[in-house]
């Protein structure tokens, strides 16, 4: 079911979080349920010795030791989450994205491939209420774009007007599209198919229809399409 490298990284990390969440949740809820049933008031039982009573401040109780144990255990769990998150984010959103390779199949970029340089990044611009995708040479398309499978694609995302958010739903990546700023995301698609792009920040009446399609093609099909349109 792997559709892109980003989706695989997300699923793994989400799995770790959920695994721990279920363990912690089950322990906490089991403990609560047990205590509530075990210590439910019965008619025969009488109040504990230290029951707070009207007329005096109750004696304070509680061990710092227990708090310390709780905090230490939690810190340990949270440290795992922080470390795994950092590892994921270093790959997903590095300061310098990897070389783009989507153009290597195109004849005009033979030299780029030979020298191992990066292909140009694609520009994505959010407008009220559509997406414009621009390839080198100012070839631009509204609400859809195409890339070859198993290559690296780097996108520079910005906005022409208000605050949008560019998300490729199945790839589990998104970034804000903000006028005056450029945010970069990258991915390697693993499967030829159509994927849904949607705006994730309420941007006005029309936001609901701000949907685009990413068409991941096999390399030959992409070559033909890219070459046929000038």
């Amino acid at each position: 079911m792997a559709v892109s490298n980003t989706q695989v990284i997300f699923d793994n990390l989400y799995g770790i979080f959920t695994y721990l969440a279920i363990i912690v949740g089950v322990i906490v809820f089991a403990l609560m349920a047990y205590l509530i049933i075990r210590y439910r008031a019965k008619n025969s039982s009488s109040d504990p010795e230290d029951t707070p009573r009207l007329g005096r401040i109750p004696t304070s109780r509680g061990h710092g030791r227990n708090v310390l144990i709780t905090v230490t255990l939690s810190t340990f769990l949270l440290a795992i989450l922080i470390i795994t998150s950092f590892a994921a984010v270093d790959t997903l959103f590095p300061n310098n994205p990897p070389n783009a390779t989507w153009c290597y199949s195109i004849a005009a970029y033979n030299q780029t491939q030979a020298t191992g340089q990066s292909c140009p990044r694609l520009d994505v611009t959010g407008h009220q209420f559509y997406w414009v995708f621009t390839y080198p040479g100012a070839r631009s398309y509204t609400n859809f774009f195409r890339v070859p499978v198993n290559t690296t694609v780097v996108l520079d995302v910005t906005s022409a007007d208000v605050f949008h958010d560019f998300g490729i739903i199945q790839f589990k990546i998104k970034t804000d599209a903000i006028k005056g700023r450029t945010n970069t995301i990258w991915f390697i698609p693993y499967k030829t198919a159509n994927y849904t792009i949607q705006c994730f920040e309420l941007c006005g009446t029309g936001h609901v229809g701000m949907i685009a399609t990413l068409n991941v093609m096999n390399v030959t099909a992409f070559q033909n399409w890219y070459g046929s349109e000038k």
Partner: protein
Amino acid sequence: MSQLSRIGTVVKSDPMSQDIFPPRVKRWLFTTNHKEVGILYLVTSLFFFVAAGLLALTMRTQLSVPNNNVLTETLYNQFVTVHGLLMIFWVLSPFAFGFANYILPLQIGARDLAFPRLNAMSYWFYLFSGVAIIMSFIFGAPDLGWTLYSPQTAFQFTPTIGLNVGAAALILITVSITMSSVNFLVTMFKMRAPGMKLRNMPVFPWAILVTIFMMLYAFPSFLAAVLLLYVDRAFGTFYFSSIQGGALLWDNVFWFFGHPEVYIVLFPAIGVIADVIPTFTRRPLYGSKYVIGSMIAAAVISFIVWGHHMFVTGIGLTSTKLYTVTTIAVSLPFDVMVIAMIETLIKARIKLKAAALFALGAIALFVIGGITGVYLASVALDHALRGTYFVVAHFHYIMVGASIMGLIAGLYYWFPKLTGRMYNETVAKIHFVVSFIGFNILYFPMFLLLDMPRRIQTYAPDTGWGPLNSLATIGGFIFGGAQVLLFLNLFLSQRRGPPSGPNPWDGWTLEWSLPSPVPAHDFDTIPSIAEDGTYRFGNGPGYPNGLAHIDDSKVGNGLAYSHLEGMSPWPLVMAFAAFLFFLGLSIGQPSSPTPVSYKPFWPLIADGTILGVISLYGYSRERFSVHEESHVESWPFREVPNVKLGIWTFLGAEVIFFGVLIGAYFFVRTNSATWPAVGELFSIRNGFAMTLVLLTSSLTAIMALASAKIGSRNGLIAGLLATFGLGASFLYIKATEWIELGTHGVFLVASGLPATSYFITTGTHGVHVVAGMCMTVYLLANTLKGRYTKGDHDAIEHFGLYWHFVDIVWVFLFPLFYLI
């Protein structure tokens, strides 16, 4: 009788408040009593709860199936926005502050809040702000989400004046909240019963105290942000629509407020839960000092986590990692709180009354909300989850699951205290079960909708989101329907329920020592806490079981203890004046020929101003004395009178306010490629002259105070006149400078960020100078009547504090605008 004057007594008879309205109406309109105000808060917040809930149910109906068309997209977006705003500002906090008003003074053994009239004014500002936000539907309600992201708030993208009305509502409620924070802070630091040391306070007052500190430092940031937004729309400036400021400036100032705000609406509920659990488990709260310490820690950390709302704005890998760590770290103090509540259950004797059920249920839901919050704290996961229903599910588990459920626990817990009657326990338990099940059917499916964008009006069938949405909608109607049980139960019970007696739950906090409902004057004599922790009620004998002694002959119709004591019409009138003023500022015509801004509606502004001046006059003329008890606990502010502490607190909030304005200036300046050189636009000489004039006026203010202290009336008059004159000179130089810059024609308020930031920042400061000058006029008038020179010079001193603050702000503005 002197001890009763705390309640506040209007000695002078006022025709307006005596003749027109019958006592029953007067009691609610003109009250300054904390208990009446508390009930007003509760009832009003529940009204808004129903309103916002109905908006939510309509949205759930729209979303129940794909391609649905119950609501148009515009209407849906308006509902999304107003639902969020209402719930956060007009429901959660005011609900909690209803309890804080009624219960908190009793719990710390005070007879009222420090400033009863100010408290009434907070309420009326709250009510009218709520009227404004609902009214915004008439003018096209805000439709861009409660977060009001820029630049969509700019006039060119949102020309409807409904957004102005919404912004006006937000300004009014911020004023209300700031007044409340000052009031509660002074009350809690200065009016605790003897022996009620901070460490003896129950957790609920502690939670409110921590909440107030967060409010005091978060809301000024919000006020500054909304003010700049207002200016952008009214004058066509570009703080938030330029690419130099714009989206990220708004994000920063909004979320600097926004994250603490989450804890502001959460902590009071945790305080309620921490009061309810010990009562119904019959054991003291486990590790209560660790719970309180954790709250303080979480409050502090809440101010350094706002970046996690900006993970995908492109603020850089290092920043996002830092915010991941701080945000994940903030879960540790919450761990401690939850564990402490659970450990309290060990060896307890748990009575599962409705209040206890809601408290325990709230903890369980809080655990789910907290754990899923850790997901969102991770920058890596947030790249996928941002803006999806996963986020919606998470924060509803916190805000509805923990906050609303916790506050409903409080409603059942204190209902007998508020009304003197018991509710129907069986119906209440059914209410809990149905609510809890309905809640989870409503919100849990949303965790699974982690691909679905939030705030969309509809979705296509092939997304596969239909079934989970249908399920959530069913849950929504179960949860919403359950609340009918709550309202019916409480409404019928407050009329016909069996009498509750003073302490139906066998609680330990001081409010249970009083009759239910609590008599107007609260305590006959203020209580005290002995060294061994036992309560004492003055010299009179307390009843057995820790009940306070109440002289029955004085309860009820006795004039001295009547609910009609301490009435003032002015809080209501002043709030209404402010409402008119801001409404006038908000509704008007777009300016022509190029509609980049709109023209305000001047007649309403004039009405509001006139009414405001009248009510200020009435307010200050009214003889409303609040007697300060001696021998109360006031660590660490023993030597500071109430009003002075109030002013210090207020100035603390002002520091944040100006800090944000100056911060915004820095932000746009560092993001701008070019900026006018030093001396190019402003004459340094002018700036220097203004600095000199203002600093001298600080000196004359000190002289005025010194003269008042030694009883020299002439010296005082001279000092005040000189201060007024210097203030006027400052404004004169400022005005000539403004006119000069304006006549060049190239440097108008809307001619670019250097101009905007200059005019707005120094303009706001100028308004503060004008306010100070008005104070000197008021002080002069009273001086001529012979006041302030007979040892009653407090007012001069308070004015001095304010004036020095205004001068200090200029000391910062001068170099920032003129010299660098």
